[in-house]
């Protein structure tokens, strides 16, 4: 199974606290040309899980834990998002 991580030439910043009353957001870019990309809400949660690295199952499990839901509920969406991030060059495999 593929393992995913944030690509080497990426800079990112996020709201430090995943406050339930605020929409968590991460701001991500490839260096040095950009463009900047905003990952909001669940997409930000997946990004923070991706920052730890792992398989899509592990990332889904970490995101589900942060989100407080069952991994099975989001596994398909998580994989789709991670693959999209790979296509954008923001994430990589291996």
């Amino acid at each position, binding site marked *: 199974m593929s393992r995913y991580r*944030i690509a080497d*030439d*990426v*800079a*990112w*910043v996020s709201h430090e606290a995943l406050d339930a009353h605020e929409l968590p*957001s991460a*701001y991500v*870019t490839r*260096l*040095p*040309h*950009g*463009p*900047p*990309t*905003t*990952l*909001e*809400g*669940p*997409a930000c949660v*997946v990004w923070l899980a991706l920052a730890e690295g792992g398989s899509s199952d592990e990332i889904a499990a970490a995101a589900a834990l942060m989100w407080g839901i069952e991994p099975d509920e*989001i596994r*398909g*969406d*998580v994989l*789709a*998002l991670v693959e*999209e*991030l790979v296509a954008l060059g923001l994430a990589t495999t291996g």
Partner: protein
Amino acid sequence: MTPMTQQASAATGQMPIGARVHLAHAVVQKLADDRGIDLLHLKGPAVLPGLRAGGRQSSDVDVLVRPSHLHLLVTALESVGFEQRTDFATGSVFAHAANWWHDSWGWVDVHVSWPGVTIDAERAFEVLSRDSVQHPIAHRACPVPGRTAQRLVLVLHAARSGGGTADIEGSWTVADPEERAEVRGLTAELGAEVALAAGIGELELHRGAPTYALWHQFVHGGSRLDEWRARLTAATGARAKAELLTSALRVNRDHLRMELGHPPTRQEVRARQLRRLRRAVDELSRRVGRR
């Protein structure tokens, strides 16, 4: 698209300014890494923990570049779409900084020296970078001055900006005697004694210094006439004084362009010259009236 992927968007306009500044620091550092450019990140997210009161947010990126590497940095910035908006002659009183703009990353202020430092700029960079540390900004390692140099940079900036108390508080007031002694030692090495004194309330100890009036004006304010008189006093040598007077008569086209949002026309420059002249007349008439 799934609901989750719909929430991943290229959304520059929605990006908070704080996030933009963090990413912009990382962009500049990437350019420097790729081209072997020596620079230091200053202020904002480059400030080490504990040196500044919380809640402060920068609106632009400040970097100090090794002066002999400036041309490399300029080429690098412009290669990714930054546009120069002010030059070093018009960017500030000290002719020490120029500004670049990027539609995604905002403002980058490139400094070749720091206000208050009087030794040769190349040597000053060596001194300020001597104890530099790698500090993460947007998850990228960025070189920043060491703690002592950061204290001095923040105090000098505060003095230049009219005595910002938060920076003085975080970088000087709370420093213990040993830390203050280290800052004073570095200050002497950089020839920045008058500027430091202006920041920490000791300026009157330097009444005889050529730059006294200039720093007094920064800290305590004054009219444009007072500022020019102070700058004239601080300028050393006939040539420097002549250049200063020439620039005093010249409208700052870069700033006017930023203010108007378009390159100024000849009529607009002329109107601005007349406005400055009238302001000078007003100042003089107030001065005469006081006698």
